[in-house]
């Protein structure tokens, strides 16, 4: 197994863990009846979920770096270029 394959495999696990974490944080029972207004106008339940949206974006940004499912060498026909195939 090449080092890039190992790195990608580790990256996949990190992203999977972050997605599970987001899904757990999404079920925010702790703010269910909290009527606090963040910045004086944003209900905390809504603020929390807006943060989840930002967290999701950051997670997917990380995914494109450490766990992208296809190598950059995949050409326009969906095939891996010959140099990449030779390396693996």
């Amino acid at each position, binding site marked *: 197994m090449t080092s890039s394959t190992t790195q990608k495999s580790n990256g996949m696990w990190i992203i999977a863990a972050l*997605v599970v974490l*987001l*899904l757990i944080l*999404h*079920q*925010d*029972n702790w703010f*269910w*009846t*909290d*009527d606090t*207004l963040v*910045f*004086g*106008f*944003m*209900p905390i*339940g*809504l603020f929390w*979920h*807006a943060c*989840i*949206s*930002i967290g*999701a*974006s950051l997670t*997917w*940004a990380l*995914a*494109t770096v450490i766990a*992208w*499912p*296809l190598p*950059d060498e*995949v*050409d*326009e*026909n*969906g*095939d891996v270029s010959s140099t990449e195939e030779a390396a693996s």
Partner: protein
Amino acid sequence: MNHPGLPQLIIILIYLGLLLLLGLSSSRLFKGTKEDYQVASHSIGPFLLLMSLFGTTMTAFALVGSSGEAFKEGIGVYGMLASSSGIIHSLCFFLIGVKVWKFARRHKYTTQIEFFRDRLESDFIGLLLFPILVGLVVPYLLIGVISSGTVIQSLTAGLAPNLEMFQAYTPDGNPIIALNGGVPPWLGSLVICVVVLVYVFFGGMRGTTWANTLQTIVFMILGVVTFYVIATRLGGQDGLMANLNALAESVPEEKITRMEMSKTKFFTYLLIPLSVGMFPHLFQHWMTAKSANTFKVPVICHPIFIMIVWVPCVLVGIWATGDLIPAKPPLPSNPNTILPFLVKTQTGKVLGGLLAAGILAAIMSSLDSQFLCIGTIFTNDVLTHYKGKENVTDAQQVLYTRLFIIGIVAITYLLSLGNVKSVFAMGVWCFSGFSALFPIVFAALYWRGLSAAGAISGICAAIVSWSVLFYQALEQDALRTFVLKLPLGGEEYEIMPVVVMLASSLVTMIVVSLVTPKPSEKTLARFF
């Protein structure tokens, strides 16, 4: 220009004219091939892909439905429908979209059915999926066509109250003030259908993508502008922050919390956005990507875009429940008309017209992709498949796709004229049906052990469970509100019907696949 409804009508017409111009301009780049017509010759870059995917997944519900639901249910709708979609939609683009793009480019697929037939060595799966996919998309199309007519009527109300054709009455014969004199829904829907038909017909996927990009920009900007203007007018304070604070203080506690929302229903709603993995129109948009890396921008930006559209709309929705809302005119009883109502009563005519254009943009950016996708499915998976590729030229396939699109637009429009208001309650059922099929596409991409019999049984289980639950909801006259009640430890927990549909599809698919023959090694080697 001071005539009621006229500025709005002029702005709508200018906007529709712009769209036609864009669609016709894109047709000048048309290369005359089927590949160019159906998937824009796989030439779409990251920005256009982001805008077209986002525009396609966000319907009118993103603007009017989100504020309406927030008005009814409070802030919980954001977590239930928006932040969950931010996580799951991008997950589907990442896990399903990129991989199907690779196989589709390698093996020349345009539709899901072509992929499934090849992957599972089964012609029958295409025959089975075809009516299911079309059947689940049609109500979704109907919602768009009917909504467009309703939106145009409500925002042009007062235009021609003396014209008999433009008058709107309640069943007991009283004029409906909020609608009377507005462009009648049959005419508004007809105009929208014709505009979408023209740019899809001439521009194909390239026209659709360009139009989607324009429409997405329009409804995102107008959503934020509307939020700012409404906040300024309703708050009555100096400065945006002071207005926002005053409005938030006016909202009742049950709307700024989720005290009336079921936690288990909220949790199980997470499965609904999985529908994106099986939407045939999104599949076709994925195929337009220039490269696998083109997916990176949509995967990253989609959750943020959802937030930009939904947070302002949800806030406007809850403000409408507060005591800063003027007592006159009274709020409409239909929650979905809250946003147009506030725009009409709290802002100027020009913004009203622009918002109408924004809502229509959100509707049309889904309609166009769905029309094109159904035309493509008919041409590729039925006509060309059974006639034989060698017997149909490229030019003929483009012609057939265009003819099928005309047919679908005509049928959808005629259906929309019937008494089909209940179709609005179908939205969540369509999404649930697509979600129930998610295990099939996921397994086709990631599990060598999936057999044709397993996939077919899984699809059948999804459809049978969908039908049984749908029948129960109809029996209870609760299509919109139907939930299952799970007794546990002396308490009852509400869960969405999609849980049962998805579980039955998943379990059946796995069990049957384990005991039935897999596709040949030669086929598996092409995918794993």
